[in-house]
């Protein structure tokens, strides 16, 4: 069946903000889908609230709506655009849920729009646990024994049948949210209560425990003619009990015989048929009892998933792209395999290498959280590595995490084998290293299997790595043969250096002396059976290299590695844009990255892709390989976040040309003394500050400049280790807590700044070419200084800054750009306190807000920066039309306002006692993603941002207010307005007193610490009983915050809007009117037309 001719326009639903369990893999799949559909001549309409994505670039769709993904908004878009079809299978669970809602509300029928890729019935069969279970059994396969519960009482009853431990899984949630193991009735009650809450159908599945079984996934594709192929098998190294997103996984499955594998494949195909996934991708998860091979089907996703992104990168088979083609009618055998060009997509990729994925966690950001891994996903990102064998792939993946202690090591280990085995029995971040230490300390493979349930083969591979380490350490001399054997098992120069008591540079010198370097193999889907035309490479210490010579000018772009809090999809956006711009400018672009979720690691994005760890050694080897032909113009380091930036000096020292701002100048911005000089020369002020290398120095500096102070380790992103400190005791406490994390040291001093209370914070992204400054955008933060810019809500253009203030910001930015010697991007953070402009920090690199600015104002900052780095000037870029004539510091009054809001993951993290961790914002960033609301004025844009972040204020109900003394003045007006709008107000005694005196009727409610008396509930009881719809709770600076914590934790657990700053509350209150009137929608393309018209209108008549 060729392409359908009745589909001329398609609405693609994106996945919204990056959250745990749903990250930028859906940007990758959505971007692929948009590209494919447009190439097929179809008009693509896109809705996605996430401005950091590549898919929301106006170039990827005909109409791009950066709007909330709600049924109402989507209906408005449908009414306006009248698409023939909706494609909901590439935007994760968010898109699928939206499709279900559109169907239930009759919107699909009303506008006669067809769902393609999956039918409602199929979605329900896959997601409804009972239906799915029946269907699996009909297909002749097995499932874990289970019961469906709709109440806690049911659950307790069913547990008697299933026995403990048992698994609780809420229906229709993503990333395993709300699911977990219950070992006792108490735990069952807690998990079930939460699970019923997070399930849109108030339904949980209780299941027999299959803890410790082997876990597998199959990625399947089916076309409209019932042709089905298995794209990839994935095996979890961590057995059942750890969410697959949190497991170390390997592709292909390694420990199955063909009989077992084919049985799994048969079941997978039967399931995709009986669920009725008519076209597209689907993922089925299995558990296998290691003692007898019994196969159980765990679940299936009738859509492109996180694992599909991994499978696509692991095999070179672009699942999302093919899924989009199948959705518009093509058959698998009508679609060519991209990589070979001559063979069709109706085949099953075969691998002659091993792929390992490792999760990246962020528990350091949530010290109170229980770090035990469970069936609820907690990782915030992942790294993937490709090697010719498992040991290499595993070691490369671990070093790709860029996290201290993530790699195997052979240093001092004082714990005994028994202790280490006991520790590794609990799955946690870094368990595999503990296991390696246990084996080193004498544990046997059998003991390790008993402790962890990992397949003995995987454990033996770690033992093998230890054996190689012994061999390296014990060798008389570091000969070529010794090095070659270590390299064939993935040892880095740094690891070999540790084993031999040398430096990394010495090992590299010895190795290069032997001419021992990796070759680069190709990911080709077919294990070499056919020639591959796509240069998608990975390193291997093998014999033959496959890097094709080229005589072009080359630019290497360093990606940003695994997603983590503070360094996410925004940086990938910049890297991808750089690649596009430099390719268009005639360069051969070479991308190096190790994050399988991203668009940058799509082999279609750059001219050449190297899937490699972002360490100095790995990057240098790629550069060496690419230097064998053509001309290497340089390396782009300022777009890949701290990861890429951190490599700049090492590369330069090795003689590699760095494009843009030099590593020395990048350093200037971080060196306090030098930076102070630059500020002095520019006549600029910074808050009083100093630097400290240890606790004594820190106390001295802090006492000298006066508390409160803001402390911040240098060379970190996302405010890692950043805190506001109010006393000398607190400074000591800070150092105790940071110990062992290597954040502060001789080369990485602690920066100590006077903290500015009540200051307005401003973020600026700008370009500088050595001559001319071009402002991308001036963003005003809604919250006062002290909350990390990544977590704060901000508006572009600013809505309370005057012309003169903006001019001052512009001048200051120019002085810094000039002083530092920026060539490319610069981000500066300012604060205005008592009318004075302070410079907080400057970063000569792409910032997190680059994509937001680009979407809000239509200024392609990353593209422009890349061209500046290769020698263009801003004048030229303006002349060529890449940059608008007028920069982002002057936004006309009739332009739209864009608001960026952060999305936070507190709900995912529980303390050991099972409570949600505290949700207060601070100087350390903790958000995982962001959304944008854009509309004609601030209240409307703000309202959209809140709707998109799922934190919109309800239009009526009960509001609870409890604020600190400092906020009591400021609360009066918003509270009054809430009352006028018909909300009922409750408050704790102190706050109620103020409200009542100001003529606001607020009922007093008992504090949590007062306890409930005679059936008179406390505020926490009320929140738990879902009797409160909105909570306003501002924390006091330094005092004990127990009451506040209980309130906030209960609010987050109840999933109700929570305001912890008055600024955010005031904005929300002002936006209620806008929400009541409903949202108007407008595409980015239409905004661009508006801009062009405004420009034309304002141009002088003579022009």
């Amino acid at each position, binding site marked *: 069946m060729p392409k359908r001719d009745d589909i001329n326009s398609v609405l693609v639903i994106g996945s919204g903000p990056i959250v745990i369990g749903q990250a930028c893999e859906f940007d990758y799949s959505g971007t692929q889908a948009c590209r494919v559909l447009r190439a097929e001549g179809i008009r693509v309409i896109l809705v996605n609230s996430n401005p950091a994505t590549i898919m929301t670039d106006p170039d990827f769709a005909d109409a791009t709506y950066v709007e909330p993904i709600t049924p109402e908004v989507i209906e408005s878009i449908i009414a306006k655009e009248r698409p023939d079809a909706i494609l909901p299978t590439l935007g994760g669970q968010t898109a699928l849920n939206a499709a279900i809602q559109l169907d239930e509300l009759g919107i699909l029928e009303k506008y006669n729009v067809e769902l393609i890729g999956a039918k409602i019935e199929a979605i329900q069969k896959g997601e409804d646990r009972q239906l799915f279970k029946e269907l699996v059994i009909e297909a002749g396969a097995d499932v874990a024994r289970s019961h469906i519960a709709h109440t806690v009482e049911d659950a307790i009853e069913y547990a008697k049948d299933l026995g403990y431990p048992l698994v609780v899984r809420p229906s229709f949630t993503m990333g395993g949210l709300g699911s977990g193991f219950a070992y006792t009735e108490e735990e069952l009650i807690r998990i079930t209560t939460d699970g019923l809450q997070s399930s849109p159908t108030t339904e949980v599945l209780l299941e027999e425990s299959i803890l410790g079984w082997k876990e597998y996934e199959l990625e399947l594709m089916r076309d409209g*003619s*019932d*042709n089905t*192929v*298995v794209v990839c098998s994935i095996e979890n190294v961590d057995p059942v009990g750890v969410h697959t997103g949190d497991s170390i996984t390997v592709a*292909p*499955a*390694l*420990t*199955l*015989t*063909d*009989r077992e*594998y*084919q049985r799994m*494949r*048969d079941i997978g195909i039967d399931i995709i048929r009986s669920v009725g996934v008519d076209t597209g991708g689907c993922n089925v998860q299995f558990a296998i009892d*290691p003692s*007898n*091979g019994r196969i159980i089907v765990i679940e299936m996703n009738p859509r492109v998933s996180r694992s599909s992104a991994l499978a696509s990168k692991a095999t070179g088979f672009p699942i999302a792209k093919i899924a989009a083609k199948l959705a518009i009618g093509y058959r*698998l*055998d009508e679609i060519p395999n991209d990589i070979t060009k*001559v*063979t*069709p997509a*109706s*085949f*099953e990729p*075969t*691998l*002659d*290498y*091993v792929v390992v994925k490792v999760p990246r966690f962020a528990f350091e950001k949530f010290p109170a959280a229980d770090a035990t891994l469970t069936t609820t996903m907690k990782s915030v990102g992942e790294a993937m590595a490709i090697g*010719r*064998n*498992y040991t290499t792939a595993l070691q490369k993946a671990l070093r790709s995490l860029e996290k201290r202690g993530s790699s195997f090591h052979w240093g001092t280990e004082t714990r005994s084998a028994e202790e280490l085995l006991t520790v590794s029995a609990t799955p946690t971040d870094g368990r595999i290293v503990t296991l390696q230490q246990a084996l080193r300390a004498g544990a046997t*493979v059998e003991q390790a299997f008993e402790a962890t349930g990992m*397949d*003995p*083969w995987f454990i*033996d591979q770690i*033992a*093998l790595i230890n*054996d*190689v380490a012994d*061999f390296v350490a014990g060798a008389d001399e570091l000969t070529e*043969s*010794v090095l070659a*054997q270590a390299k*064939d098992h993935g040892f880095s120069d740094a690891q070999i250096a540790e084993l031999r008591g040398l430096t990394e540079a010495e090992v590299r010198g010895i190795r290069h002396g032997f001419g021992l370097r990796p070759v680069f*193999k190709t990911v080709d889907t*077919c*294990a*070499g*059976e*056919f*020639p591959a035309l796509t240069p998608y490479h990975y390193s291997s210490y*093998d*014999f*033959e290299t496959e890097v094709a010579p080229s005589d072009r000018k080359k630019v290497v772009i360093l990606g940003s590695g695994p997603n983590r809090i503070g360094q996410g999809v925004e940086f990938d956006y910049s890297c991808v844009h750089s690649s596009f711009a430099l390719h268009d400018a005639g360069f051969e672009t070479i991308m190096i990255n190790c994050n399988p979720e991203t668009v940058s690691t799509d082999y279609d994005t750059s001219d050449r892709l190297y899937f490699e760890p972002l360490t100095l050694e790995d990057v240098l080897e790629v550069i060496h390989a690419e230097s064998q032909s053509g001309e290497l113009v340089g390396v782009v380091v300022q777009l890949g976040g701290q990861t890429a930036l951190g490599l700049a000096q090492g590369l330069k020292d090795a003689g590699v040309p760095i494009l843009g701002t030099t590593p020395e100048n990048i350093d200037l911005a971080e060196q306090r003394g030098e930076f102070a000089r630059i500020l002095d020369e520019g006549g600029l002020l910074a808050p009083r500050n100093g630097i400290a290398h240890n606790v004594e120095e820190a106390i001295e500096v802090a006492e000298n400049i006066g508390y409160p102070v803001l402390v911040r380790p240098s060379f970190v992103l996302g405010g890692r280790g950043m805190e506001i400190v109010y006393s000398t005791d607190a400074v000591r406490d800070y150092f105790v807590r940071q110990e062992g994390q290597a954040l502060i040291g001789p080369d990485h001093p602690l920066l100590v700044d006077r903290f500015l209370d009540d200051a307005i914070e401003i973020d600026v992204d700008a370009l500088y070419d050595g001559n001319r400054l071009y402002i991308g955008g001036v963003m005003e933060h809604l919250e006062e200084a002290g909350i990390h810019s990544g977590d704060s809500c901000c508006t572009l253009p600013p809505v309370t800054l005057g012309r003169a203030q903006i001019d001052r910001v512009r001048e200051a930015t120019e002085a810094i750009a000039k002083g530092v010697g920026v060539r490319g991007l610069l981000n500066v953070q300012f604060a205005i306190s008592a009318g004075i402009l302070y410079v907080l920090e400057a970063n000569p690199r792409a910032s997190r807000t680059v994509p937001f600015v680009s979407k809000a104002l239509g200024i392609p900052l990353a593209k422009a920066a890349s061209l500046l780095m290769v020698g263009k000037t801003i004048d030229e870029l303006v002349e060529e039309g890449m940059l608008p004539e007028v920069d982002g510091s002057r936004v006309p009054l009739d332009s739209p306002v864009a608001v960026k809001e952060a999305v936070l993951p507190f709900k995912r993290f529980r303390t050991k006692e099972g409570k949600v961790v505290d949700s207060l914002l601070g100087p350390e960033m903790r958000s995982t993603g962001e959304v944008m609301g854009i509309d004609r004025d601030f209240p409307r844009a703000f309202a959209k941002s809140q709707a998109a972040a799922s934190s919109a204020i309800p239009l009526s109900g009960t509001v609870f207010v409890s604020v600190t003394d400092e906020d009591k003045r400021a609360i009066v007006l918003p509270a009054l307005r809430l009352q006028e709008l018909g909300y009922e107000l409750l408050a704790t005694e102190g706050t109620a007193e103020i409200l009542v005196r100001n003529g606001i009727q607020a009922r007093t409610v008992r504090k949590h610490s007062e306890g409930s008396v005679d059936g008179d509930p406390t505020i926490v009881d009320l929140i738990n009983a879902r009797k409160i719809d909105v909570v306003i709770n501002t924390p006091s600076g330094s005092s004990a915050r127990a009451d506040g914590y209980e309130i906030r934790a209960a609010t987050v657990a109840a999933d109700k809007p929570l305001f912890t700053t008055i600024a955010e509350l005031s904005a929300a209150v002002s936006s209620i009117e806008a929400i009541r009137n409903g949202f108007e929608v407008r595409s980015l393309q239409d905004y661009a037309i508006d801009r062009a018209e405004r420009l034309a209108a304002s141009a002088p008549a003579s022009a």
Partner: protein
Amino acid sequence: MTNTAFGSAEPAVLVLEDGTRFEGAAYGKTGTTLGEVVFTTGMSGYQETLTDPSYAGQIVVMTAPHIGITGVNKTDMESDRIWVSGYVVRDPSRRVSNFRSEGTLDDNLVEDDVVGISGIDTRALTRHIRSAGSMRGGIFSGADYSSDAEALVAAVNAGEQMAGLSLSATVSTTENYTLPATTERIGSIAVLDLGVKRATLGYLADQGFDVIVVPQNITPDGLLALKTDAFFFSNGPGDPAAASGQVEVLRAGLRAGLPYFGICFGNQLLGRALGFDTYKLPFGHRGINQPVLDKATGKVEITSQNHGFAVDLPIEGSHESPEGFGKVEVSHYSLNDNVVEGLRCLDIPAFSVQYHPESAAGPHDAHYLFARFREVVLAGKGESK
């Protein structure tokens, strides 16, 4: 489960007839072996591959790097022994892990006298064969490893060429034996053992046939004397052009009106029996991910394949059998390179496929062919009644 000290392997070398050398470590038995070097891309099922008689005379290169993880067991053997003449892997497993495992692959290779090599760049070797074509090679370890490089190349070039080679006698049974039907009996079938796999016999018996396995040198009269309801030619090694005796047996069966089903070598021999030619592919199809289109249904099957020769026939239209068996069409073809993957006679009850519907190892997409053959046999019986 041996945990040999790291770095203690004995050296070995793989030498190709064009002089290319790959240095690695001895694996399996130490010594010398010669054969045609071919690669297979299956990621699972090494034991089925090794015990598949079709690989007789060949040095098999596994493109999947890790081999031996699940050990070996009796159930997964496709015949009584390992047939490959040499084995090339990148990373042999030093530990076995599977609940069905009964031993290690290393021990199994040594027991069956298979000389192998490990630790070489198997991808480079595969790419070399892909572009230069299948060629002869030799693995040398132990005393022969140190021989002069030119002497080794000469030894390889003194080996036999696969083209024109008959290997059926090497792999076939020498005595008849019978497996009873495992479901309701519908008749009997003679299976000419040219290197048949156990899975094939099992599937035929599952379709209600009493399976009579006969040696490769059976005469036409010998076949007809069995008075079976159908006959079948199996897969097997060697050049179909060197199997004229078996082609005569096939023609006799067809002339007698016996329903025929053939797999792999049995497909090539049907082609020759009908009067068409066969030819040698540059490097063959070996793997378990091969897409084949069933022209009748328009559906794609992911198939298990292992063939170095193919029937020379246009994939479109129907063709008159020069041997007078009526019209013939290509029923299946490879979506990768349009090679003939199945033949169907339109005027007599005979069909065959070039790939492996018994798929051990491999996907089960083509199992239906056994049932389809049962229908052909049943339909024929209905007519004659």
